[in-house]
């Protein structure tokens, strides 16, 4: 409880002042809450570009691969090196560090199955193609396709699982065959990642109680006064702008926005979606490419991607706010270390080093900003079952 709330509580005791109940939500607000509630989250949409996306054997295979450090040039970097389950599948660093040091913050994979675009600039249109980029990136896993084949070939379990799912491994020196294996590794990793879905948080249990017309009981479904006031601010279009981007049960619309967060010293690396969409459209591993299992008419997001316009410049993908208190540092390059400073950015941000910021000056008090941050802490949740390191993780 912050200083303001303590003062209010003391005044209540001394003077019988009753604080306005934060429990009274209007019908319109209840509908807003329903929109954010995890009970409103459908299963992940299908990924027609990956025929094994929902195959449980592929997911089990993908889980082994996700945690396998052998899938890197130095044998020390796995997907899980930057996406640690104990850190809500992030790494607690400003920028991800694999074989080298990148210039991007590692986002969570919780709920990634619901995204249409991947990486901060949206340069990939599927989870499997994103995995391939990280595996090949010299700064991340620096894995050659040929080595990927040999890692599978040298492991009895991998040979068995790969054969069951995809057929025989190619002969050494078969470059096209190596790419096919590489793609199938990515598709298996996606099958696993699709199972890393958001779980209910205390906020969700609070909303479930309210929607059912009852008072929340027990510590695991109550919100503190500060959290409720923060939630009010979050919902209020007059006060905050949060719902413009952080909407829906994932607390993100998954699209790209300029919030003036670019690095003032950087140039081309800060173009964001403006550069990313061009890469996605040209990517050999996109939905329309030969490695995709989709029919062209199933590639709707790619087909209708907005590829021109001033709004794309310096625009980065809005991340989910679920588990946000545990996924710092923040922003595309991790230059904002703590959540307080994220809130401060929204409180003070005017203009953008590149392009045009969507943000307007917020009309909230300092206390309301604090309460907003406190509310965000109620969005924490445990990971789903059976997504941690398998017993044979290396």
């Amino acid at each position: 409880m912050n200083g303001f709330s303590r003062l209010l509580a003391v005044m209540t005791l001394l003077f019988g002042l009753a604080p306005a109940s934060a429990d009274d939500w209007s019908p319109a607000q209840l509908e807003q809450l329903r929109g954010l509630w995890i009970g409103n989250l459908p299963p992940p949409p299908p990924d027609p570009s990956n025929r094994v996306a929902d195959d449980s054997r592929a997911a089990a295979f993908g889980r082994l691969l996700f945690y396998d450090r052998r899938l890197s040039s130095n044998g020390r970097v796995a997907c899980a090196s930057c996406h640690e389950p104990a850190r809500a599948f992030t790494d607690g660093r400003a920028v991800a560090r694999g074989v080298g040091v990148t210039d991007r913050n590692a986002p969570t994979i919780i709920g990634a199955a619901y995204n249409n675009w991947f990486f901060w600039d949206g340069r990939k249109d599927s989870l499997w193609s994103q995995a391939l980029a990280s595996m090949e990136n010299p700064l991340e896993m620096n894995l050659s396709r040929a080595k990927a084949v040999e890692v599978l070939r040298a492991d009895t379990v991998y040979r068995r699982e790969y054969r069951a799912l995809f057929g025989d491994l190619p002969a050494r020196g078969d470059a096209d065959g190596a790419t096919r294996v590489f793609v199938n590794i990515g598709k298996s990793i996606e099958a696993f990642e699709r199972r890393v879905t958001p779980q209910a948080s205390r906020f969700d249990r609070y909303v479930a109680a309210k929607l059912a017309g009852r008072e929340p009981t027990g510590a695991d479904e109550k919100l503190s006064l500060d959290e409720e006031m923060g939630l009010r601010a979050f919902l209020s279009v007059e006060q905050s702008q949060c719902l413009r981007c952080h909407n829906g049960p994932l607390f993100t619309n998954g699209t790209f926005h300029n919030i003036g967060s670019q690095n003032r010293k950087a140039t081309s690396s800060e173009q964001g979606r403006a550069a990313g969409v061009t890469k996605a459209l040209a990517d050999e591993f996109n939905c329309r490419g030969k490695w995709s299992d989709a029919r062209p008419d199933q590639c709707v997001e790619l087909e209708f991607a907005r590829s021109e316009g001033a709004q794309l410049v310096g625009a980065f993908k809005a991340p989910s706010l679920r588990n946000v208190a545990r996924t710092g540092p923040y922003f595309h390059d991790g230059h904002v270390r703590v959540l307080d400073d994220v809130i401060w950015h929204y409180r003070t941000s005017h203009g953008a080093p590149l392009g045009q910021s969507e943000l307007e000056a917020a009309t909230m008090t300092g206390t309301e900003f604090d309460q907003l941050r406190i509310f965000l802490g109620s969005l924490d949740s445990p990971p789903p079952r059976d997504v941690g390191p398998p017993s044979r993780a290396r």
Partner: protein
Amino acid sequence: MVGPAKATLLFLGALALTPAAGGLARALDGAAVYGPFASRGGAYLATLRSDLAPPTINRIHSWSLKLADASGAPVDAGPVTIDAGVPIIGRVMPTAARARKGAGAGEFVIEGMKFDMAGRWRVEVHVGSGPASDLVSFDVDVK
């Protein structure tokens, strides 16, 4: 030729300055129907129908357009282009929707519509080319 950045700014400026027709949808067979609206220059009547009813956020979806002349007769007055935005905050749709000719006279299919926030969106449909071009503008309330 106006470059894309300038075109976007011009679009938003036009959205902000020009009034639109009312945007209350009627429900019809599970779809949300808008219009008929008269075009700004009076040349056309446009009735639009969203496959997503009511319009909700973060789902890519299709619309259909029935275009008629001022007398109500169907007219194939292409090309048809469409865009939408929230002018007061400078938001445009995250997608580039496209219209193509539909099966019947005056019918067009609009694909790739997507609203990424709740609120009042301004939809603009440009019809025809040259001297016959006109604009239909109306609001959609998205939840």
